C-alpha cells in the first residue's frame, strides 16, 4: 500500500507540474505547425503569471485574473504576428524581443505595485477538486486543479482533432509546410498565422497564470525559470503532435515530481539538491537528442511569407 501511495502521489504531482508546460507547448505546437517559431513563449508565460496574479489580487476573482492573463497573452501573440507575419522580421530576434519586453513589463509592474513590501504578496489559490473521493489511491491521483483536467481532457484531444481531422488543421499544416502552395490553393496564409499566434499566446499565458493562480498563489521572479524553453524542446520531442507533446510534458513533469519527492525526503546525499533541480532540464535535452534525429520540422518554419 505504501508503494501504491508513493506512486499515486508521484503521478498526481507529475500531472500538476506538467500542466503549465503542456499548455504553453500546445500553443507553441500550433505556432510552429504554421511556420512560426515563437521564442516569446517564456516572456508570455511570465507576463501571464504576473497579470493573473495582479488582477486576481485587486479584483479578488481568480477567474478574472485568468481571463486577463489570457488576454495579455493574446495581445503579445498579435504583436509577435505583426513582426513575423506582417513585417516578416527574423523570428528568433523578434521572439526574444517579445520575451524581454514581456518580462520587463511584468517586473516593472510588480515592483511598482508590490515594491515596498517585506514579505512576498500572496493570494488564496484555486482549490483542487477530487472526483472519486472515496476510492483510495485514485482520490490522490485525481485530486487536481480544474485547469489540469481541462488541459489533459479537453485542450490536448481537441488540439489533436483540430490539427489532424479538420480542414482548419489541414490549412495550418499546409501554411507551415508550403505557404506558396497554400496561398495558391486559396488559403489565407496571413490570417492563419495571425490566428495561431493569437491562440498560442493565449495558451502560453494561461500556462503562466496556472503557476501563479493555482500552484503557487504568488508571483516570484523565478516563477517560470526556463519552463518556456522546455516547452519548445517538448514540441520538437513530440514531433509537433499534441499527444506526443503531452507525453513529453509527462516525462518532464515526472522527473520534476521525482526530484521534489527526493528533496522532501530530506536524504543526506553527497550531491547538492540543485542537481535534482537541473535534472528535468538535462532529461529534456537527452529526450531532444534521442527524438530530434527523427524530428521532421515544418518545412516553412522560420521563413517569412510575402506575396510577390
Amino acid at each position, binding site marked *: 500500500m505504501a508503494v501504491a501511495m508513493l506512486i499515486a502521489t508521484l503521478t498526481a504531482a507529475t500531472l500538476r507540474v506538467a500542466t503549465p508546460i503542456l499548455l504553453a507547448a500546445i500553443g507553441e505546437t500550433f505556432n510552429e505547425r504554421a511556420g512560426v517559431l515563437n521564442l516569446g513563449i517564456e516572456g508570455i508565460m511570465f507576463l501571464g503569471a504576473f497579470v493573473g496574479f495582479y488582477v486576481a489580487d485587486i479584483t479578488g476573482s481568480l477567474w478574472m485574473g485568468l481571463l486577463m492573463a489570457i488576454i495579455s497573452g493574446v495581445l503579445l501573440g498579435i504583436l509577435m504576428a505583426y513582426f513575423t507575419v506582417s513585417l516578416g522580421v527574423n523570428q528568433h530576434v523578434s521572439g526574444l524581443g517579445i520575451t524581454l519586453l514581456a518580462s*520587463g513589463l511584468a517586473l*516593472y509592474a510588480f515592483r511598482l505595485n508590490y515594491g515596498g513590501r517585506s514579505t512576498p504578496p500572496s493570494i488564496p489559490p484555486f482549490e483542487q477538486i477530487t472526483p472519486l473521493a472515496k476510492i483510495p489511491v485514485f482520490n490522490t491521483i485525481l485530486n487536481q486543479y480544474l485547469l489540469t483536467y481541462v488541459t489533459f481532457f479537453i485542450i490536448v484531444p481537441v488540439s489533436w482533432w483540430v490539427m489532424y481531422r479538420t480542414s482548419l488543421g489541414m490549412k495550418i499544416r499546409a501554411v507551415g509546410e508550403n505557404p506558396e502552395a497554400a496561398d495558391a490553393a486559396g488559403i489565407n496564409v496571413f490570417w492563419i498565422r495571425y490566428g495561431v499566434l493569437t491562440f498560442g499566446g493565449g495558451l502560453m499565458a494561461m500556462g503562466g497564470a496556472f503557476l501563479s493562480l493555482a500552484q503557487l498563489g504568488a508571483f516570484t521572479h523565478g516563477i517560470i525559470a526556463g519552463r518556456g524553453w522546455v516547452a519548445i524542446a517538448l514540441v520538437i520531442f513530440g514531433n509537433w503532435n499534441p499527444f506526443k507533446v503531452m507525453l513529453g510534458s509527462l516525462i518532464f513533469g515526472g522527473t520534476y515530481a521525482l526530484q521534489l519527492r527526493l528533496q522532501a525526503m530530506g536524504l543526506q546525499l553527497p550531491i547538492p539538491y540543485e542537481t535534482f533541480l537541473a535534472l528535468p532540464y538535462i532529461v529534456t535535452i537527452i529526450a531532444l537528442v534521442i527524438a530530434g534525429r527523427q524530428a521532421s520540422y515544418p518545412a516553412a518554419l522560420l521563413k517569412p511569407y510575402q506575396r510577390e
Partner: protein
Amino acid sequence: MPLLKFRLEKTGAPLWFRGLIPVITLVLTFILTSGLIIWGKANPFEAYYYFLIDPLSGRVSFLEVLVKSTPLILTGIAVTVAFVSGYFNIGAEGQLYAGALASAYLGTVLGGISTPLAILLMLISSFAAGLLWALLPALLRVYLNVDEVVTTLLFNSIIIFMISAILNGPWRDPQSGWPQSPEIAEVTRLPQLVARSRLHFGFVLALTVVAVVWFIQTKTSFGLKFRAVGLGKEGARFAGINVERTILIAALISGGIAGIAGYVEVAGIQYHLIGELSPGYGYTGIIIATMGGLNALGVGAAALFFGLVETGAQTVSRALGVPVYLGEVTQATMLLVILGMFLLQRYRIRRM
C-alpha cells in the same frame, strides 16, 4: 537569413533616411514607454532627461556608462560571431557564467604572480570555460542536427543551478553565510583605469575584442567563410567551404567571448562570484548584436548606447522612484522599433 539580407539591401536606402533612423527610433521608443513612466507617477520628459542626458553630464556617471557597457560589448560581439555564421547561440548568458566560474576559481588559487600574468591566465581560462559550455550544444547541432536554440537556452538554466549549488555548498561564505564565493586575490583583480571610478582594464579588453573581431570579419578569409555559411549553407558548401567546421568554430569562439564577459565582471567589478552576476547580459547581447547590424563596430557602438540605458535606468530610479526595470522595457521596445525600421528601409528599396 533575413537579417543579413536587410544589411545587404540597406546600402540602397536614401542617405537622408538612414541618418534619420536613430532619431525616429528614439522618439518612437520614448512615446511607447511614456505610458509606463506616467503609471510610475513621473513626468516622461523629466524621466528621459535623467535617463539619457544626466548620465553623460557628470564625470562619475559618464565613466559608469563605460563600466556598464563593458560586459555588453563582449556579449554583443559573442552573439554576433555566432549569428553571422547562422548559428543561433542564445546561450551567451550561460557561457558568461562559465567564464565567471573559472575566473572566480583562479582568482582564489592564483597568488604571488604578477598582474599581467594573472590577466593572461584568467583571460585564457575564462575563454576556455565559455567555449566548453558552448561545446556540447555546438557538437549536437553540427553532428546530430539538434536545434541549438533550444539546447543553448536549456544550458543557461542548467548552469544557473550549478552556480547555485557551488555557492550554497563548497563556496558559501563561512563568516556571513551568504551564497558568494571567497574574494579573489588582489593581484588577480583587473586594474582601475581611472582613479576613484569603477572603470577597469576590462573595458580595454572589450575594445580589443571588438577590434580583433572586426579585423577577422572584414580582412580575413575566415570572416568571409563565416558570412558565406550564414548566408546559405548549400551555397557555401558548393564553394568548397567546410560548413560544419565553420559553424563549430564560430559557435566556440562565440562561447569563449561570452566567457570573457564573465571574467571582466568577476575580476573588474564584483571580486567574487555571485548568483546575480548578470542581469541578463547574455540576452541583451542578442539585442545589441541585432541593433549593430552584426557588424563588430556597429555592435560596439550599440553596446555603448545600452551602457547608457542601463546607467540611465538606475539614475531615473534613484531620482524619480520609477522601477529600474524601465531600462529593460526600453531596451526591448527599442529592439522592436529597430526591427520595424529595418523593414522600412527594405520597402524604400523595393519602391525604387
